[in-house]
C-alpha cells in the first residue's frame, strides 16, 4: 500500500472568499502580519501496491478530472507520501 497526496488550490486569479474570511479572523486571535490566506484541499489516495509511474499518472488524471475543476483550481502537487511522515 502506498499513499499519494494531491494538493488542489484555487487559481491565483480566482477570488478565494474562504481564505479571505480566515485571513480576516487571524488578527482577532493575535496573529498579525499575515498579508493573505488562500485555502485549498489536500487529498490522500491510498492505493494497492506500489506507487509506480503508471499509478501516479492515473492519480494525476483523476486529480485533473474529478479532484479539481480546471476552471477555478490548479493541481499544485501530486506526491507519494513518505512513510516516515505518514
Amino acid at each position, binding site marked *: 500500500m502506498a499513499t499519494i497526496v494531491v494538493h488542489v488550490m*484555487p487559481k491565483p*486569479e*480566482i*477570488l478565494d*472568499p*474562504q481564505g479571505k*474570511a480566515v485571513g480576516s479572523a487571524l488578527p482577532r486571535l493575535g496573529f498579525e502580519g499575515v498579508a493573505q490566506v488562500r485555502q485549498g484541499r489536500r487529498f490522500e489516495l491510498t492505493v494497492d501496491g506500489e506507487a509506480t509511474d503508471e499509478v501516479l499518472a492515473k492519480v494525476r488524471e483523476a486529480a485533473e478530472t*474529478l*479532484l479539481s*475543476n480546471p*476552471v*477555478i483550481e490548479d493541481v499544485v502537487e501530486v506526491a507519494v507520501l513518505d512513510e516516515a511522515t505518514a
Partner: protein
Amino acid sequence: MTARVGVVTFPGTLDDRDAARAVRLAGGEPVSLFHAEADLKDVDAVVLPGGFSYGDYLRAGAIARFAPIMEKVVDAAHGGMPVLGICNGFQVLTEVHLLPGSMIKNEHLHFICRDQVLRVENADTAWTGDFEAGQQIVIPLKNQDGQYVADDATLDMLEGEGRVAFRYVGWNPNGSRRDIAGITNERGNVVGLMPHPEHAVEPGFGPDSREQGRAGTDGLGFFTSALAGLLASA
C-alpha cells in the same frame, strides 16, 4: 401532443417535485428521471433541478456530473434537446462542460434567500422565448455557492455572442462576474441559472409582485417557452 419534460433526481436533490409541478402548470408532462439509470425515457426536454447533489461534496455538482444519466443528458444536449439547469443543476452543467465557467462560494460567504430581480438579456434561447429581451422578472434565489466566475476571455466571449441569458438587477447577491445570473450555450438549447424559476409558477406561492404578496409567477415563462418551442418543432 403533450411535451414530456424529464426532471432528474440525484441523491440530495431538493427541488425535483417543484420542477415537476412547474412543468405540469406550464402544460407539459413531467417525467421523473433517476441519476443511476442511463435512460431519458423518450423525454423532449430535461430539467436539472436545485439542491445539494451528493451533499455538494468536493464541489457543487462535481460528483453528479459522473452519474449514469448525465452521459445521456450530454448527448441529448449536443443533439439540440432543451436542457435547463437550476442552481445546483447549473453547477452540474458547468462541471460537465455543457456551459463554461464555474460557481464558487458567495463573496460574502453567507447562504442567501431572497426574491431577486433579473433582466432577461437573451430572449432567443429554448427557455426564454416567452420573454422579451430587456424584460425584468422576479425569481427567488437561494444558495451559498452562487458566485459565477470565468476568465475574462470567456466572459468577453459570452457577452460578445449574446450568451449572457440573465443578469442581476439592483444588487449583485453573490459577487458574480459582470452580474451574471445565467448563461446559455452557443445553440441556445442549454440554459443554466442560479435563481429558481420553479418557485415562481403559482399565485400564492411565488415571490411578492407589485400588485400582491406571493403572487409572482414570472418563472412559468421558462417552462412555457420550452414547451412552445417543442410544439413548434413537432
